[in-house]
Structure formats: structure tokens, C-alpha cells
């Protein structure tokens, strides 16, 4: 890759003999918006802290712009961080918090002033300069934290679940704003979240992690449409995951029924996981579809109804714009292109 900015190679991190990162390798391009997505404890923060310089890997290498920086201390890196709980300086006011990095670099007072003001303007905190940070709301503290990092115009901004503490509405607003800052300032953003929706809406590229390993990386569309295994499928959006057998190319059997599909190359009679998104199951009259079942429950979700159907020994989740009667029989079909086949995950993996 040409414009690789950060190159992580075979990173291993251990705490008390416990492997937290297990040979993680990853390249991050310049000006990219990359998101680490995964359940709590999968090593997202740890990876971020390696890039920030707060921990050194047991083995493996960290390259930044072609230079190995494994043991370069944080204050010498062209990287800034928005910490999970903001970590604002409690003894400084808003202005002083944002000016901290510039003052440390001993920039002329005048330049500090104009850059801080410009940054406060951008995050909408003009007029709050003299406020103590303890008197700000969560959303405002968040903006100070972002301004404090961005004012240094780092090559890379690390954001560790920055919106986790905000309410839904504010979170949506901030998502859009962060994306705007990233494009406006042309800075590489490395974003950590366990919220799949956040990851899908903001990122150029999503890295799905689990137990210190990368499961899949790709564009949000790739990850959503072509999950590489049942874990990714389950973690990204809702899905029905069913045991299946790949009979031969383009033919799979699951729930006791044979389906045409678009996958090949699995070999004959191969055990597989079959993933079907709830919105990809179409409701038809009983007997018309390949599957027939009883409606167990119907929940209104705003845009759609979430319908649970008991059919062929499985509980199926369907998203449909039309409600169904609980207890009624319905038929279900799935288009070949909406059936995703993936290698069976081994037990405990």
C-alpha cells in the first residue's frame, strides 16, 4: 500500500500472562477514518494505547510513517487522543485546556490565541473560554476534549469511545460533526467503539475485533453485506444464524430444506454457518415459501415490525413493514443472493 501511515505488525500484548492482543497486524492509511469495532474487552483500547505510546507490545512492531516507534514516548508522537472519559485538566479553564498542547510547544502567545479561538469556534464553544471544565455539560466537555486534541493538528487523532457517555440525540449530532472535522482538517481518525451502527455510519474502513484478533476488515458495506463468519454477522446488525450443509456449489441445505445460493468453493457436503438478515426474509402465504412456521411474537419497532417465527426447529427473526397475527401460519422465502454462507466457526473460537 502506498500511503500507509501506521503499520502494526504482529503485535502481542499480555497482562499477567493473559494474551490481550494476539499477533495483531494492521495498516492504516493517511487521512483515513478507521474504526475498531468489537465487544468490550476485545483489545480495542489496548491497540489504541499502543499507537498513542502508552504501552509497548511484548513483541511486534509499530511503524509510523515508515519509522519504527515501539518505545517512542507519547509526548514525542504526532498523535493526539480523545480519551474515553475526556480527562480534561480540572485546574484549567476551557481556554487553558485547549491551549495546553500549543503552550507546551512554546508557540507565540498570539498564535496560540488565534488557533484556540478558531478551534473553539469550530466546536461551538466560543464564549466559554473562562468557564471551569467542571461546570460544563457532558457534551460540552466532549467538545473541549476534541478541540484540545485537534488544535495541535496531529497526523492522527485517536478516539476511544468518545460518544459513549452522551445521550442518543447528542451522539448522532456528534457523529456527523466528527466526520465533518475529519474531512475538513484531513486528519487520520482512528475511532474505537462497540456500537456497530456508529462504526458503519462514520467509517471509511471498519476493523472488527474479537479476543485480541482481527476478524474482518473492510468498508462498512463489505462488513455488513459479506460478513466473513457468524461472529461478525451476529455482531454487525441482527441476523439469523443457522447450521447448514453445503451440498455442492450453489446449493445449500438448512432447516431441512434445499436453497439455491450464490456461493461456491466450499467443497461437497461441507458443514457451514448460514446467515440470513431479518430484512432479507420475505413473508408469503403459507405453503408458497420454502419455509412455513407459526408467528410467535410481533413487536413494533418504529420503521418496521420485528416478527419472531417458529419454523423447522429454529426461531427466525423477520423485519417487515407489515404486521402479522400472532399464532397464524406464514410462509417465508429468501432470495439466493441474500443467503450468506460462511465456514463453520469451531467451538469456543
Amino acid at each position: 500500500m502506498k500511503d500507509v501511515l501506521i503499520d502494526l505488525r504482529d503485535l502481542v500484548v499480555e497482562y499477567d500472562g493473559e494474551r490481550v492482543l494476539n499477533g495483531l497486524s494492521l495498516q492504516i492509511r493517511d487521512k483515513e477514518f478507521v474504526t475498531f469495532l468489537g465487544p468490550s474487552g476485545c483489545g480495542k483500547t489496548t491497540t489504541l494505547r499502543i499507537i498513542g505510546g502508552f504501552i509497548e507490545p511484548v513483541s511486534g512492531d509499530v511503524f509510523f510513517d515508515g519509522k519504527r516507534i515501539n518505545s517512542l514516548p507519547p509526548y514525542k508522537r504526532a498523535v493526539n487522543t480523545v480519551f474515553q472519559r475526556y480527562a480534561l485538566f480540572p485546574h484549567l479553564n476551557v481556554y487553558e485546556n485547549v491551549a495546553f498542547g500549543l503552550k507546551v510547544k512554546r508557540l507565540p502567545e498570539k498564535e496560540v490565541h488565534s488557533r484556540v479561538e478558531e478551534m473553539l469556534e469550530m466546536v461551538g464553544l466560543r464564549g466559554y473560554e473562562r468557564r471551569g471544565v467542571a461546570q460544563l455539560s457532558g457534551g460540552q466537555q466532549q467538545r473541549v476534549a476534541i478541540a484540545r486534541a485537534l488544535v495541535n493538528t496531529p497526523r492522527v487523532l485517536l478516539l476511544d469511545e468518545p460518544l459513549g457517555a452522551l445521550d442518543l440525540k447528542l451522539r448522532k449530532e456528534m457523529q456527523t460533526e466528527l466526520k465533518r472535522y475529519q474531512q475538513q482538517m484531513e486528519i487520520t481518525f482512528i475511532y474505537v467503539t462497540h456500537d456497530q451502527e456508529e462504526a458503519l455510519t462514520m467509517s471509511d474502513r471498519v476493523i472488527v475485533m474479537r479476543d485480541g484478533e482481527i476478524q474482518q476488515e473492510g468498508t462498512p458495506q463489505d462488513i455488513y453485506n459479506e460478513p466473513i463468519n457468524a461472529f461478525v454477522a451476529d455482531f454487525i446488525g441482527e441476523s439469523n444464524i443457522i447450521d447448514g450443509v453445503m451440498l455442492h456449489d450453489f446449493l445449500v441445505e438448512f432447516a431441512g430444506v434445499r436453497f439455491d445460493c450464490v456461493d461456491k468453493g466450499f467443497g461437497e457436503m461441507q458443514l457451514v454457518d448460514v446467515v440470513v438478515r431479518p430484512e432479507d426474509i420475505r413473508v408469503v402465504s403459507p405453503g408458497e415459501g420454502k419455509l412455513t412456521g407459526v408467528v410467535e411474537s410481533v413487536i413494533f419497532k418504529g420503521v418496521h415490525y420485528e416478527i419472531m417465527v417458529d419454523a423447522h426447529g429454529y426461531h427466525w427473526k423477520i423485519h417487515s413493514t407489515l404486521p402479522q397475527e400472532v399464532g397464524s401460519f406464514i410462509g417465508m422465502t429468501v432470495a439466493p443472493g441474500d443467503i450468506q454462507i460462511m465456514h463453520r466457526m469451531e467451538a469456543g473460537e
Partner: protein
Amino acid sequence: MKLHTRLASVPYLLWVVVFTIIPLLLIIVFAFTGTDGGFTIENISAVGRYTDVIMKSIWLAAIATGVSLFLGYPLAYIISRHSARQQNVSLMLIMLPMWMSFLLRTFAWMTLLEKTGVINRLLGLAGLGPFELINTSGAVVLGMVYNYLPFMILPLHSVMVKIDASVIEAAQDLGASPLRVFFKVVLPLSMPGISSGITMVFVPAVSTFIISRMLGGGSNLMIGDLIDMQFLGNAYNPHLGSAISLVLMVIILLCMSIMNQFDDDVDVEGVLR
């Protein structure tokens, strides 16, 4: 509800009145009356004769406070960056000597510092000394530091544990070298601990009389010794003793208010968050 809380506070109010306010008033009365019971400011002006003793007390206590701060600050900081368990053990070790009698501890230093004491004998083996260790100002300062160091470390530690590690990381992240992290973040955030540590060491040090008597010999008289002499010693003069006490109190109050000035620079609310 309101009546209850008011009733509950009665014993404490009584306590304060009987054991704090009345004695304080008595001291004031004694300080401003003569042996005949009439009003006079003679006692207060007589305190002026002891200016050198008072200055020396303040000087020795200030040195001891400075040394305690110098020794206690790094120690408190190091302790505060360890795990909760390690912190508890360290703090216990620091407080351990305080479980023994103050007199005994100071007496132990006498036997160490004496002309024929442990230290001089050890030095003698190496062909050095004997040195004049005891009955010096240095011995008094040493005794103060030894006895009051925990009072410096504890308040410093309790403020420092509240400094969030991520705030320090944020400073590093923004380009601050370890030295600048210290001066721009750790030091300002530990100001409240510094000022209460200074108060907690300076106040008992400036008014001590045991340490100066046991380790300082006759030449290192302190305010505490003066007061002691007026009440329990040959000089017996409670009126003068009260006057000196009053002056001492004013000195301490002055020192504390100066310390509080420093405190105001720091947003304590924020620190404790």
C-alpha cells in the same frame, strides 16, 4: 426532622463551648490581666523580650516543614501511583512509628545522637568523631521531621490518589515531557495537599517543647518551652504564659491564612471530581 438534627447537635455544641470556647476566653482573660486581676497589656508587651526565641521557633519549624515537604512529596506521589493494596501497606508502614509513644520515639533519638550514643560509637570505629550531634538545632529539626513527616505524607497522598491517571496521560499525549507534566499538572493539582501538609507539620512543630527539650539542650529554647516554663516550671507566671500562647496562636492563624491564599488558586471542586 429539623428539630431532631438540632437536638442531636446539642452535645457537640456543649463540648465545643466547654472545651474550646471557654478555655480560649480564659487564655485571653489571663493574657490581659495582671497578678492583681486588673487589666493590663504588660504581659503582651513582655512577650517582646522573647522575640529571638519566637523567631528561632518559627525558623526551626519552617526548616522542618520544608524538609518534610521535600522528602514527603515524592514519596506520597510514588505511593499514590501504586495499586490500592500496595498503597495501604505503604501507608501503614509510614504510620507504624506513630503507634509508639511520642516520648519514647524522641527518647530513642537521644540515645542515638548522644556523645556516647550509637551513631558516635559507630563513627568512632571508623576513627571519626565524636561529633556534637545532640543539643543542636539540627537535632531538633531532625526530631521534628521524624515525628511529623507522616502528617505531611498523608494529606499529600489523599489528594494525589484523586489525580486521575488519564489526566496525566492526556498531558503526555499533548506533548508534555515528564518534567512539564509535573509542573503543569501534578503540582497544581496537589496544591491543596501541600498546603494542608504544611499546616499539619508546621503547627505542631512550631509549638513543640518535648523535641526541643530532649534533643535541643538548653540552647535551643522554643515557644513551647517558654509556655511550659510559665505554667509548670520555676518561672511560674500563667499570665505571661497565656500571653505567649495567644501570640503563638496569632502566628499560626497568620500562617494558615497565607496557606489558604495559595489554595484559592486551585479549583478544589474540580480536583475532587
